[in-house]
């Protein structure tokens, strides 16, 4: 029996990292929002590593925060260790990574959701999407309730027909022993959404009291923590260390001896797994020359003994897992609390999505997170914010918010998956961005907070603060270019002490800071009138002055990119009717339906010659439309 459960503007299916952000964004924009989860205890659950951030991923979290999302604040509140990676390199690739207290992370997010106005969180399994005339009209759940809606966001993670593999032990399951969602796949397929199978895996969780850390190398957090959220002023916590150890020949021998018992090699696992999260057996097989592999012990929280064994993901049978873990120094007596497993799940083809993350097949139906074939909490959260914003925009009849490749990693992520398609789970890396120097984690607010404010996720109050910071940066840069440093003996002594060369005539202080060896903070002696500035302003001033030349170069590239992006391709265009396009190009263009010449040029299989032909066809079209219009006016 079904019954009417009520009407919502936006329904979000799944309350993981994508779903939480989507629901919060929608509700914060004032839309009546329902968030469905298969289990209330798994809201914002981290079924794999207990950390947020890392290269590229840390950038995403900062961007989510700059737009008005929750992830940054959530990890700031619940982290137990934090590290800035890549500090030996330049600012563009500095990336924060924090170890989270998993349960604390979940509880905090759940509480924020529960306390959010316009938002209702419910434990129900979505089984059907309801579609009329190509538009989403509602969602049905396992208890028989039918909710009507204007828009829906599917964030089903790895739950859709989830299947777990531990050697020859195989069963239907969601992550972490939760129930799988066995029905929604069929409903999606019935409504024309094609699915594919992907795979991912996770290592065992072991009992800390059975580990001998004295045989491992301690990994501490940073002394000074840089928060993820631009709203967090300071984080002062007692940090918990991680530990590093290594596999050895014995470990590898056990793997080699038992390979035939791995479902990866027996062919039982059909889903495609990510190359950047290889199982230990894959690492040993593919890189057999490597004598040892790194293994990190990462605590899952403050109130648990569970330790996440990073680097030891596996789907070998449990007995083999235990044996091979016990070969590792410090793990000789290790006891498992949860075994490593591989999980296979249904996901969609993201090329079937628009840049707003709305389905090309069904209006008002949005997708975000792992169902789009991505991997990672941060990637999921990033899509969640965008899908949530755009579901809200759709419900209220407004234009979608689209972030392009030059504005953020979020734009790179979405454009990559919808334009290039994916054949394995997609993970963000800084090398995926063409404009890495511009898309720094330190300037995510400068890039995206205006967008967040325009759409309504950033409060006026926060925006005011942001504008003040922006002005402070501008003023200080201008001020530094004004200040002249004289070529006095006294000044040259200071320069020498800083390991820099002497000056022969006066130069601006900006010019001095442009020298790689000189830091802003070291130049106070030249600058008695220096104002007291917030560290985040100083950071921007320094980066913008020091890398000015390179930043300008990238800005020029961006200008070129924008021109191609702004050359729009009309929706109604029939690529088949354009003479001169190669067949392969026509097929690809028909499938992706790019909205701009820029997007078209990124599709593999579309050549520069095809783009030329396309440009001419567009111009032809524009002119014949103009002629018709003129003729119409004459009549």
């Amino acid at each position, binding site marked *: 029996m079904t019954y009417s459960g009520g009407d919502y503007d936006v329904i979000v299916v799944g309350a993981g990292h994508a779903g939480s952000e989507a629901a919060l964004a929608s509700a914060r924009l004032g839309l009546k929002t329902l968030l469905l989860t298969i289990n209330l205890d798994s809201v914002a659950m981290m079924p794999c590593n207990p950390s947020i951030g890392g*290269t590229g991923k840390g950038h995403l979290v900062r961007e989510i925060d700059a737009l008005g999302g929750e992830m940054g604040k959530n990890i700031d509140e619940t982290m137990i260790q934090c590290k800035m990676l890549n500090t030996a*390199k*330049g600012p563009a*690739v500095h990336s924060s990574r924090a170890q989270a207290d998993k349960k604390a992370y979940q509880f905090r997010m759940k509480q924020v959701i529960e306390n959010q106005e316009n938002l209702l969180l419910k434990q129900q399994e979505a089984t059907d999407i309801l579609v009329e005339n190509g538009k989403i009209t509602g969602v049905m759940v396992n208890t028989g309730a039918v909710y009507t809606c204007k828009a829906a966001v599917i964030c089903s993670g790895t739950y859709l027909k989830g299947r777990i593999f531990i050697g020859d032990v195989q069963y239907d399951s969601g992550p972490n022993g939760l129930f799988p969602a066995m029905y929604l796949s069929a409903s999606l397929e019935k409504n024309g959404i094609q699915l594919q199978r992907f795979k991912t895996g996770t290592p065992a969780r072991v009992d800390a009291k059975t580990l001998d850390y004295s045989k491992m190398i301690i990994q501490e957090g940073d002394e000074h923590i840089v928060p993820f959220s631009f709203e967090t002023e300071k984080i002062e916590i007692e940090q918990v260390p991680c530990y590093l150890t290594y596999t050895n020949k014995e470990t590898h021998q056990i793997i080699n001896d038992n390979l035939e018992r791995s479902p990866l090699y027996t062919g039982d696992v059909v889903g495609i797994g990510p190359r950047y999260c290889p199982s230990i057996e894959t690492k040993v097989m593919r890189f057999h020359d490597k004598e040892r592999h790194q293994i990190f012990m990462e605590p899952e929280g403050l109130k648990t003994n569970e330790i996440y064994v990073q680097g030891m993901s596996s789907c070998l049978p449990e007995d083999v897992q235990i044996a091979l873990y016990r070969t590792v120094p410090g793990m000789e007596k290790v006891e498992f609390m949860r075994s490593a497993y591989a999980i296979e799940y249904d996901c969609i083809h993201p090329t079937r999505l628009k840049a707003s993350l709305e389905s090309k097949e069904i209006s008002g139906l949005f997708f975000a997170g792992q169902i789009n074939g991505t991997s990672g909490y941060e990637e999921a959260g990033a899509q969640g914010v965008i899908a949530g914003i755009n579901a809200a925009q759709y419900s209220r009849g407004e234009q979608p918010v689209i972030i392009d490749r030059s504005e953020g990693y979020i734009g790179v992520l979405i454009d990559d998956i919808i334009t290039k398609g994916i054949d394995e789970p997609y993970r963000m890396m*800084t090398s995926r961005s063409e404009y890495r*120097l511009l898309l720094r984690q330190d300037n995510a607010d400068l890039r995206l907070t205006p967008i967040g404010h325009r759409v309504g996720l950033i409060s006026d109050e926060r925006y005011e603060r942001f504008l003040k910071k922006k002005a402070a940066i501008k003023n200080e840069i201008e001020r530094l270019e004004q200040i002249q440093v004289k070529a006095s003996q006294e000044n040259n002594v200071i320069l020498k002490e800083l390991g820099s060369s002497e000056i022969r005539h006066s130069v601006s202080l900006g010019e001095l800071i442009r020298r790689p060896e000189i830091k802003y903070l070291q130049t106070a002696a030249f600058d008695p009138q220096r104002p007291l500035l917030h560290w985040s302003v100083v950071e921007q001033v320094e980066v913008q002055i020091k890398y000015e030349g390179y930043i300008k170069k990238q800005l020029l590239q961006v200008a070129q990119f924008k021109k191609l992006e702004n*050359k729009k391709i009309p929706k109604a265009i029939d690529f088949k009717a354009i003479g001169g396009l190669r067949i392969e190009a026509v097929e690809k263009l028909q499938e992706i339906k790019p909205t701009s010449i820029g997007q078209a040029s*990124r599709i593999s299989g579309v050549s520069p010659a095809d783009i030329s032909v396309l440009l001419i066809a567009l111009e032809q079209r524009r002119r014949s439309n103009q002629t018709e219009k003129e003729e119409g006016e004459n009549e």
Partner: protein
Amino acid sequence: MEVLLMNEDTIAAVATGMGGAGIGIIRISGNKAIEIGNRLFVNPKGRTLDAAESHQLLYGRIIDPIAKKDIDEVLISKMKAPHSYTAEDVVEINCHGGIVPMRKILKLVIESGARLAEPGEFTKRAFLNGRLDLAQAEAVMDIINAKTEKSLEYSVAQLEGRLSEKLEELDQVLIDILSHMEVNIDYPEYDIEDITFQFIDDEIKNLIKKIEDILAVAETGKIYREGITTAILGEPNVGKSSLLNTLLMENKAIVTDVPGTTRDTIEEYINIEGIPFKMIDTAGIRETDNVVEKIGVEKSKALLNQTTLVIFMRDISKEMSDAEKEIMALLKNRKTIYIANKTDVIEGKEGEIPDPWIPMSLIEESGIEVLKNKMIEMVYEGNVSQEADYLITNTRQIQLLEKTKGSLENAVLTMNSQMPIELVSIDVMEALESLRGITGKTVGIDIINQIFKNFCIGK
């Protein structure tokens, strides 16, 4: 993908066939056209292109502004936008047709900031800027298609050679360097060897050296692709092979002997004052055709069809044979240089040799300079022409290789100024993109693939 489609930059090309007419035109279109013209043009009365009226011809010289070297006497004109073929600012340089000065001027124009135009690009711009009507649009599309197809075919053919192997090698090294850099950036905590600037520096300097080598090879490689097809005809033993050997031996720029278009000829390449000639050695004909001692008239005919210039040689000490008369009849309407060889045998009677025969003695090494001058003269007079398309394709490739090299040199500079690795990677990435402009491959996913292939990373 290096997309240069949006009429943003300034383009240039030779608008007339290379060596075709008495006067050659280099056309420059785009917002930097006038600036570039100004930079290179010098008028005796000090008039500048900038100040000149639109559509007015100015007389003067093109000077290499860096080397301060005089290049050619020219007539120059500017057409202000939108009153030009492309509806952009256009500058046309009318120069003395010979490919040497023309190529030099084109090179200067490019060094001054223009980019070499793609085939059909002036016409495409004209259309996109509203200069052509709808009916003409179809034709434009055909041009672009045809030219692209043709140049594609051409590049593919060309890329099958040694050059392609070399480029592939460079590509691999670049991808390798980039993947080393990127893995260090994206996977800082994995126990992969830290990439050192020393390593990148060594690798990049190696690469620059390799590109310089390829540029040198490409310079000579260009000859056999663009060369003016020249055949030496004549009866056996009149000295054809000796002439060819003399020309070849003098020439340091011999590339290679690749099999000719027909099985029984051999092609050799020579370079006279920078002008390439593709010499077809008919010696091969005789060798494979040893039943008949003479040059078959039919064979000569077939050969003439592929030849732009003919050098007909006879032994002046002998009476003209019937076969020679027959072949000379065939040569009536062809660009031919006539050589009277073996003047050493008829000592003292050289004066009796009538025009247009050039007296020559290969034994005494006389007459060779006269022949070479005649060959050059015929090119300059427009008596022989060569395919302009090929030259363009090739110059474009060289330009891209030079750009690749430039980016790599920038990378070294970036490193030397102690900038962080991700800035160096911007330069290296630019280098890869320029290189890929030649092969037409897109960059994208290759580096990530290489990372996963070479490094064991991931949680």
